[in-house]
């Protein structure tokens, strides 16, 4: 993970890369190796609440 990722695209230019991505789709569509995001909190966006929390 690096800042330069923001400036680089992913290029699928080999059969191996295409196979890997195809397998990732297959696994997702068959419920394999999923991460449960139900306990994600989500962002606080209310500005008044943020001012109160931060004391700004």
């Amino acid at each position, binding site marked *: 993970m690096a800042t330069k990722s923001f400036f680089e695209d992913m290029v699928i*230019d080999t059969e191996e890369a295409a196979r890997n991505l195809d397998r990732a789709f297959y696994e997702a569509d068959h419920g394999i190796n999923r991460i449960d995001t139900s306990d994600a909190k989500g962002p606080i966006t209310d500005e008044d609440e943020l001012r109160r929390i931060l004391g700004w």
Partner: protein
Amino acid sequence: MDYIIVPLRSLIRLDADDSLKGMLDSYQGYKSSDQEMFLKEQAVIMEKKGMSRTYLALDPNDAGKILGYVSIGLRCMSVPDDTGVSGGFGKKMNIDPESKVAQSYLIGQLSRSTDADSGLGRMLLKEALGMFDKANLIVGCRLVRVDCTDELIDYYKGCGFSRVTKNKAKDLNQMAYILTMDE
């Protein structure tokens, strides 16, 4: 570890530049200087340009303290003609038949502070994927990409990502997580 998630853009809108700068400057990232530098020097600039969105995990008992952060954005994925990609695969990816380009969500930075528990990284990943799930429902796109060094491949595999390929410089692995279709 308890935390609250706050969008950086919301803090920018509070118009308290000195307080925000002090908060960002005090961040001490675990291991990676690149991630610490990004938060201190580039996150606000890229936020204002609309190039990325950064979400801070703050300590609920000391809200001025950043426990970690995740920065997300959008990038393209291109698939040249000679790759051997099947037509069905191209449709699943929404690859444009003329430009050979599809879209992907990107987790560009993920970092926890020296004071945060190791589990915070996984929670920040969940926060990002939860936001991508919502974006997928609104505008589509199932592919989430994260780039990592060799030693982090197994970590991201444990979080549901698959290794796809190397980046152009061959120093990072490009990993993919595919969002579930809304049935």
